[in-house]
C-alpha cells in the first residue's frame, strides 16, 4: 500500500493535508442502495458507531543539516531484540564510509513507548542528528 492510500484510510486525503484545512471531508459514502433482494425488505436508517478522532496538529520536521561531515550522530536503541546489533553495524558503516562522522550509541532507558528526557537533553546538547532503530 502506498502512502497516499494509507492516509486516505485514515480519513486524511493528501489534498486535505496540503491545504492544511481544518474542515473534514465526508469520505465514507452512504451505503449504496443496491438491489432490494434482502428478505428484510424496506430501508432503515442506522447510526454511525464511530467515536470522535482527535484533530491532528501538523508538526514541521526539524531543519536538515547541509552535510554530516564532522557532525555527531546519535544511534538510539529503543530496546527491541536485535536493534543494538543493527545499530552497531550502522556504526561500522559510518566508520568505513564517512569517517568524519562521530557516532554515539545509546540505549533508551525505560519501556519502549516511554520518553527518556535525560537522553533527549544529552542529544540536544551534544548531537547534530539522530538515527533511531524501531522494530525487531
Amino acid at each position, binding site marked *: 500500500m502506498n502512502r497516499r492510500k494509507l492516509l486516505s484510510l485514515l480519513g486524511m486525503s493528501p489534498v486535505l493535508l496540503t491545504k492544511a484545512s481544518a474542515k473534514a471531508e465526508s469520505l465514507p459514502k452512504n451505503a449504496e442502495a443496491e438491489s432490494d433482494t434482502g*428478505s*428484510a*425488505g*424496506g430501508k432503515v436508517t442506522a447510526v454511525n458507531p464511530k467515536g470522535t478522532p482527535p484533530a491532528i496538529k501538523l508538526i514541521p520536521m526539524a531543519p536538515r543539516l547541509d552535510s554530516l561531515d564532522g557532525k555527531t550522530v546519535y544511534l538510539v536503541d529503543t530496546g527491541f531484540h536485535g536493534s543494538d546489533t543493527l545499530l552497531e553495524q550502522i556504526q561500522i558503516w559510518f566508520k568505513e564510509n564517512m569517517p568524519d562522522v562521530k557516532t554515539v550509541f545509546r540505549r533508551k532507558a525505560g519501556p519502549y513507548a516511554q520518553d527518556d528526557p535525560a537522553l533527549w537533553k544529552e542529544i540536544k546538547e551534544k548531537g547534530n542528528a539522530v538515527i533511531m532503530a524501531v522494530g525487531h
Partner: protein
Amino acid sequence: MNRRNLLSLLGMSPVLLAGATAEAKTKAKKAVASAGGAKLEVLNPRGMPPPITLIPMAPRLSSLDGKTIFLVSDGFPGADRFLAEVGDWFQKNMPSVHTEYRLKAGGFADDDPKLNAEVKAKGNAVIMAIGH
C-alpha cells in the same frame, strides 16, 4: 429444575412418556407477534434426535437380606473411597448384605461386558457411583 421441566426441555412431555407414543407432537410454539416490522418465516436449525426405546426397570428385590450387592465405580476420583464407605455402612447397618467392590473397565461412558456378566452371575443388585 424439576424432572417435568427437564423432560420438557428435552422435548419429552411426561404425558407423552406415559402414553409411550412414537408420534412426536409439535410442541414448540410459534413466536408471538408483536409491534414493529414485517413478518418473516425462518427455518428450524435443529437436527434429528434418534427415537428412544423405553427400557422397563429390572424387578426389585423383596429384601436385601443375604443378598450380594456389587458396588461399581465409574473411575472418577474419589468414587472408590466413597464406595468403600458404602460397604462400611452395610457392614454396620445391614450385616447380612454381602458387598463386592468393582472398578468398571474402560472410559466412564463405555460398557464393561465382562463386569456385567459377573454381576449377572453372582450379584442380586448394583449400586453405581457417578460423579466425583
